[in-house]
């Protein structure tokens, strides 16, 4: 008994290839979530009622239901309704992207509201259009302040991405499970998978700290 990592050395490259799969999903979903999150946050603060309703309903649906359910609805539902079979990875990217947009939009909304009202007034007094003021002056300040919260979201996305294993995407988690099944020994591959996730998150937070230091140079 005890741990025997020896037997998994040959399949280590297989497990490590899962990193690309996981990262691909996380990065693309993160970008979708961020861009859509900005749009939704601006909708939420919009004076046009329809836009703020749309954004509010969107957020409440995606926050109010389990992520794994959204994943399955997209993976099984899209083919059923449209007849188009989608790749598991695409379903994963879509559901994670749409889901994190709901959370990110709330973070960005709070960030925009926290920027001093005087900034907008100063911009308006100079004849700057509201749109320009938002993108050049308000958002950059908001993003700087909410950067740690955004990194939190990225970290949780990285780890939560492991649920894609339920629709058969061969990410880190799925590969560890397959390795375990082969040898009837699950603990070792799970420990290895855990290490990989941990290292990924550590790299992400270290990079984030460096970026944050750069952003704080105007303080």
């Amino acid at each position: 008994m005890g741990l025997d990592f020896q037997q998994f050395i040959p399949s280590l490259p297989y497990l490590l290839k899962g990193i690309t799969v996981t990262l691909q999903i996380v990065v693309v979903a993160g970008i979708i979530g961020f861009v859509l999150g900005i749009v939704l946050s601006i909708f939420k603060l919009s004076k046009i009622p329809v836009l703020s309703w749309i954004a509010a309903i969107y957020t409440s649906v995606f926050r109010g239901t389990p992520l794994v359910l959204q994943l399955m609805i997209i993976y099984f539902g899209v083919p059923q309704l449209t007849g188009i079979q989608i790749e598991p990875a695409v379903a994963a990217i879509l559901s994670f992207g749409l889901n994190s947009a709901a959370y990110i939009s709330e973070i960005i909304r709070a960030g925009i509201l926290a920027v001093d009202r005087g900034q907008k007034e100063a911009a308006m007094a100079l004849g700057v259009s509201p749109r320009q003021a938002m993108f050049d002056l308000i958002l950059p300040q908001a993003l700087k302040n909410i950067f740690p919260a955004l990194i939190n979201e990225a970290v949780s996305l990285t780890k939560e991405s492991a649920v894609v294993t339920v629709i058969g995407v061969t990410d880190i988690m799925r590969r560890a499970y397959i390795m375990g099944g082969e040898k009837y020994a699950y603990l070792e591959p799970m420990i290895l998978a855990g290490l990989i996730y941990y290292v990924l998150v550590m790299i992400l937070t270290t990079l984030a700290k460096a970026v944050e230091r750069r952003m704080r140079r105007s303080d």
Partner: protein
Amino acid sequence: MINVENLHKSYGSLQVLKGINTQVEKGEVVTIIGPSGSGKSTFLRCINLLEVPTKGKVIIDGTDITEKNTNIKKIRENVGMVFQHFHLFPHKTVLQNVTYAPIKVKGLSKSEAEKMGKELLARVGLADKANVYPSRLSGGQKQRVAIARALAMNPEVILFDEPTSALDPEMVKEVLEVMKSLAHTGITMLIVTHEMGFAREAANRVLFLDGGVVVEDAPPAEFFTNPKTDRAKEFLEKML
């Protein structure tokens, strides 16, 4: 050049401005004084529509800015503002603060804008601070940058909303000096202030506001030595 007719502003049931009538000629330096809550700042903020009047007209160069289809952006390009709390853009350098609007709003090239920005910074005595961020400046320096930022749009009018009220006492003078250097250079200045010395020395006219109306409108020499109304007398006794 600025005509204010029967200007009213209410917030819900609170009436702040109750019918202001006044004219300001091109190049005039007008200080607006009065007790707190008298509507001075609200009046000023109606002139560039940071507050939308409830009733009445504000006509600048023949254009009624309270009309629905007026291009507010164009008006604001021509009417600069300096705020009590500066409102510099903290993520931009001093020079970028000054050049941002000329580049983005007026479409100046970066090099043109920077040349002009540096000249303006020199004019307010801050040529050496062009590349620092606002957080490194004192209050007085921040306000001088804010003045340069307003001047960069080459406006005909600048509104000053209590420009020295948030400053440490030793920094008031440097800002007032810059403002004095602008006075009577052709630029129209409307200044809400508690600096009676400045009002006395630099202004053409003093508007005394109380209770949302103009109570007195006189040259400073007359207003400070011989106020006509009891309310103005009372106010001056407290201030001087």
